[in-house]
């Protein structure tokens, strides 16, 4: 009988634009703290430098290569020629700026969660950008949905963090997800290779694998920050409901029972396992972050795990 008189409501849907100020003074102070701590993390390494695998005009020996006509004579190792009468080039490691590409998923599914995944992703992107800028790296941010929505051109210098804030602040969660197309477009726009960090919930109807593969194929050093929310695995649903996909608008009639919820939890766990298996197999760095973890703490964990920005 209680069910009989239960009140009805319209489709419950997260609101995308009700977030408070993300980059307030408190957040910036936490970034400062993050900056100090990240220095400690990188102690002993060459600060603000990253060696490229390309031979260049650096001072440190990298390798030898057989001379081909057209090569720069200045790089011929004449000592080797004297001993072996073979023309080989002495390759020096070329020191260059690291390009850090932050790819933020702004699709409709990122409007879910508490806090919302997009808000959390913005703070995470800002924090990573701050750390990168602090290391004098070149930072670019791209907002993705079913294509590239918006792009912050590569920039460097610590004071550019406010530009990053200005870029991130107006982004909203809406539309569908197509990581493959979006990352394909990103790769086409950015020829300079570097570290690409995809911040997303990986809810792509076409499959997340294709998008990540596009990064790999574009010779980016791919990393994935997978945002999860507790409600993703255990949604608070009961009774007769029409489920509506927040991105595609597709609906399904469901009678939610404890058993169905249990099976859904299993399906969600299997999906996570699929992501882990893929990234493990493709040697893509995967960082699964629960949105309940404070962003600065999450960034520190990412940095401690290594591989990203080091």
């Amino acid at each position, binding site marked *: *009988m209680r069910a*009989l008189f239960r009140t009805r409501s319209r*489709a419950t849907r997260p609101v995308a634009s009700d977030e408070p100020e993300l980059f307030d003074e408190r957040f910036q102070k936490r970034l400062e703290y993050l900056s100090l701590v990240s220095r400690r993390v990188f102690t002993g390494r060459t600060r603000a430098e990253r060696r490229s695998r390309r031979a260049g005009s650096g001072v440190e020996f990298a390798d030898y290569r057989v001379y081909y006509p057209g090569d720069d004579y200045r790089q011929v190792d004449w000592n080797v020629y004297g001993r072996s009468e073979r023309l080989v080039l002495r390759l020096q490691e070329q020191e260059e700026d690291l390009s850090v590409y932050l790819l933020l998923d702004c699709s409709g599914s990122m409007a879910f969660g508490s806090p919302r995944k997009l808000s959390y992703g913005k703070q995470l992107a800002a924090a990573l950008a701050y750390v990168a800028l602090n290391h004098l790296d070149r930072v670019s941010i791209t907002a993705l949905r079913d294509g590239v929505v918006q792009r912050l051109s590569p920039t460097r210098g610590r004071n550019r963090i406010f530009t990053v804030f200005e870029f991130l602040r107006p982004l909203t969660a809406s539309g569908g997800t197509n990581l493959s197309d979006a990352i394909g477009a990103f790769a086409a726009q950015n020829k300079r290779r570097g570290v690409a960090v995809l911040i997303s*919930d990986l809810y792509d109807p076409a499959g997340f694998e294709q998008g990540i593969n596009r990064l790999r194929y574009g010779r980016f050093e791919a990393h994935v920050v997978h945002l999860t929310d507790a409600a993703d695995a255990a949604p608070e649903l*009961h*009774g*007769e*409901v029409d*489920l509506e*996909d927040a991105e595609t608008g597709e609906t399904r009639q469901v009678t939610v029972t404890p058993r169905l919820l249990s099976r859904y939890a299993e399906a969600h766990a299997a999906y996570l396992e699929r992501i882990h298996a893929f990234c493990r197999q493709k040697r893509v760095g995967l960082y699964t972050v629960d949105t309940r973890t404070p962003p600065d703490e999450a960034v520190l964990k990412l940095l401690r795990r290594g591989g990203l920005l080091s």
Partner: protein
Amino acid sequence: MELLGLSLAQFLGLLGGASLLTVALYMLRLRRRRVAVPFIGLWEGLLADRRSSRLFSRLRHLLSLLVALAVVALLALALADPRPSAAAVSARTLVVLIDAGVTMRASDVEPSRLEAALAEARELVRGAGDDLHVLVAQMDASTTPLSPLTGERHVLERALSRVEPSDSPTDHQRAYRYALDVLSGRPGAEITLLTDAAVAPGPELAEALARADIAITHVPIGRRGDNAGISAFAVRRYPIDKNRSELLVELYADSNHAEDVELTLLGDGAPIDVQRIRIEPGQSIRRVYDDVTGVAHTLEARLRVPGDHDDLAADDRAYAALPERRRSRVLCVTEGNLYLEAALLLDEYLDVDVVTHAAYRSADGYDAVIFDRFAPPAPPSAPALHLAPPGGGASPFEIQGSFERPLFERLETEHPVLRFTALRDVNVARAARVDVHETDRVLAGEPRGPLIVAGEREGRRFVALTFDVRESDLPLRVAWPLLVLNAIDWFTAAEGADVAAASVGRQLTIELPRGVKHAVVRDPAGREQTLPAPHGKLVLVPSRAGFHRVSWDGGERTVAVNPSEATRRDLSPQPQLVIGKRAAARPEVRAPGFQHPPWVLLAAAALLIVCLEWLTYHRRWTV
């Protein structure tokens, strides 16, 4: 089956309307809630199974609707209050008469006979139900129903809790008559007496009960009957000297042992005498205190019986109240009568003024006036004692002649005016022949004419002697001053020199001053009730022994009420009630039946279903 709460049409209308509403609400319930999810792809695999369970889901919906309709039907039926039709029930009707008379206060069974009777009655009413309707009544001097004729046990138990011990004797015949009135024409009628007396109905009553096919059962109460108590307690003021009183106490013992009792007398609440008295088994002892002085209002006797040979405490106390004394103003209109003046001197509470016939103007301001051989020109404004009225004026009657040597053949010795007087051998020379009014009362006289007449004129009392006391030897006798003072007491409503107390259960009439319409009576337990006093008379049937305070506007009076004289009897319980030649059986004690009416069951069933539905809903079994 019959519906008591609703008619059949109302019930069907209610059921139909509520069912339609339920179905409408259920249709609303089936509208689904739309919920947005971030990624429906995760649900796709799960929804494949849902299609196969759609039929089961529909069945669950149908079951849920049926449950709701069942709840609605149960509630509608509960409102209709269905009861088994009377014809379908083999009904039994029982009147439980609980003796609450004074002897039931005996403590030979713990804590008292009355409590033992109530315990037995509780066992009896426990079996009440649809097929056994019971009425609980208390019997003492009257019979008081405490419950309706009902099968509801809690009502009967509440009625039993209202039974109160009484100081009055039990009138079993009245209780039988009451039960006969209740049970006449009812099937399976039965009277159950819980009493220590086992008094059978009188022959006529027994025949009426038999004709009405009413069975009588009996539960004997009590174990033994040792008792010692006060059987009589009376006090009176001496007529000649009303400052002194005479007191009579009678004690008795109904036991197998000689009792050494202690009798304490209290005057106005303070002990004035304590005596140890030995009473032999079955004997009564009288004690007279012939010169009790210094007591203005109340006297009380208390008896203490050592050991456990007294099972009834109710008769261990007795009470008496002395009437209030107040000064009275008396006007004597006489040319000189030493006998009269001497008689008036005996009562120090009288203020006597003497005037001659010629000086008499009126009796205003006096409580009584005495006309000695004088007829006032106008009716006096106070009660009057006429001595040899000459006739004419405002004389109470006209003189028709005289007769010689009258004799006091007829005497109304019960009248207050003649109380304590001995007039039969008084010698009188002659008396006037008068015509008395119909309302007048001849207190003494002979066939030739009245000698002493009492009555009322113009709303005021009078007493007239048709002879001249100087022509008789009456003034030489003790009766003379008694007669005069009695008449004045009667005028001033201060009669009651004999102040024997009233008894519990007996009607008592208290005369109040003229004009008093209501009086408040406060019993010994402190309970007050306002009673009407038509014509200045308050009628009271006291149910408790002790001092009762009667108060009215401008006055108060104490009335003593003693335990009934019937208290003095053998307290031994009578184990058998014999009606005709057959002993009454003990009543059948039935096992407690289910007490609640069907609507309670229906409502409980509806509640149970709602609870189950609530439980299954929240466990997601039915959604």
